[in-house]
């Protein structure tokens, strides 16, 4: 029997977060929600989701800081992360951070439809199985 995979959605924009959660539920995933980086880190380290979908620009704690914290954990250093952001990767520091913390994808929100993002999630989880 196929076990339900848990996906943590860390996104401050409520409408987008809810849309992602809805489509993940339809696809029979178990979505968890966090509205900023701090909540995301806490939830990730507590629930150990199978994949994290992470925004970068968020209040309280930004996505890159949250990713650094998650990667410092023994479980978190290997969890697959997809960055879904509107922040253009044209700054050296951002690129160095991204490369250092190894997300699977760096996706620009405006470029991607939700079902394409879900396709990528499914592919990553299939590869892990």
């Amino acid at each position, binding site marked *: 029997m196929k076990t339900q995979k848990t996906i943590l959605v860390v996104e401050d924009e409520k409408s987008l977060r809810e849309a992602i959660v809805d489509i993940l539920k339809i696809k029979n995933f178990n979505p968890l929600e966090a509205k900023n980086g701090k909540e995301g880190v806490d939830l990730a380290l507590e629930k150990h989701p199978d994949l994290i979908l992470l925004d970068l620009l968020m209040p309280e704690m930004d996505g890159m800081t949250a990713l650094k914290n998650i990667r410092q954990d023994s479980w978190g250093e290997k969890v697959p992360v997809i960055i879904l952001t*509107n922040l*253009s*990767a*044209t*700054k*050296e*520091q*951002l*690129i*160095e951070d991204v*490369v250092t913390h*190894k*997300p*699977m*994808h*760096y*996706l*620009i929100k*405006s*470029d*991607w439809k939700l079902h394409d993002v879900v396709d990528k999630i499914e592919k990553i989880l299939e*590869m892990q199985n």
Partner: protein
Amino acid sequence: MRKAKQKMKILRNIILICLLIVMMSSILASKFRRENPGYVEILLAQVSQALDVTKNAQVDTSNAGVVVKVAPGELLPIAVKLSNFGGGRRVDVLVEYSIISSTGEKIYSTNETVAVETTNNFIKTIQIPFGTGGGVYIAKTSIIYNGQLVPATTQFSFTIEKKILGIFQSDFILYGGIAILVSIFMAALGHVLIKRRQRTMRLAPVDYSDVPHDTRVFYELISDTIMGMRQQVGESALDIAKQIEGLVIDEKTGRVLRLTTKPSKVVAELVSGYEKVLGKKVSFSFRNS
């Protein structure tokens, strides 16, 4: 008187039986005629033949085999069937063959004398004159018997058509057209397959296992971004990449050869360059390590 009455009765019965036989025969004959018209026709013709042989002489022709189309200079086979001649004795019949165009012009004519004893079947071949124009023609056969043109004539139509490389013109055009279409289709299919193969080969991830581990991720990231952009904007993706300071690539394949400056700076400038061309931000992916 009584004997006479008996004779009359017997005679009447005989007549009735005869009438009955005639009626039965008539019924059977009409049935037989419906089922075997040719045979009945011959019988009737043979009966009449004793009265006037020329009135009932028959000639029938058909195209021998499946030939309905011939080329100028080729032979046209005609199957001839003569019947009801001679009344049982051998007679000479003059058979005249002619080829008539659709406008009524006789383009060829020949004749021969054939000995017939009641019936004769044979195949006559006529060479179509060289230079005859294409079109529908009629092969007409008439018989002359005892110096008189017998009312029996027969004809069938056929087509004369020039040949190109041993194939009839219309077939040549048809098969040629089909061959051209198939060739075009195969060429287009081959072109698509070659393009797809070239594209697949061109866009296949380049292996950088020879690059030191700490910088390999940048080589892969830059290489995959260039390949991804080639898919979207074509070869100009390479032109943009070539202009990035510190990035040396193979001008044909897009393979990253060297990074002569800070790798993150190269990535940032490459992404900026593509964003200017595309007018939108650039996503990228990392390879699974």
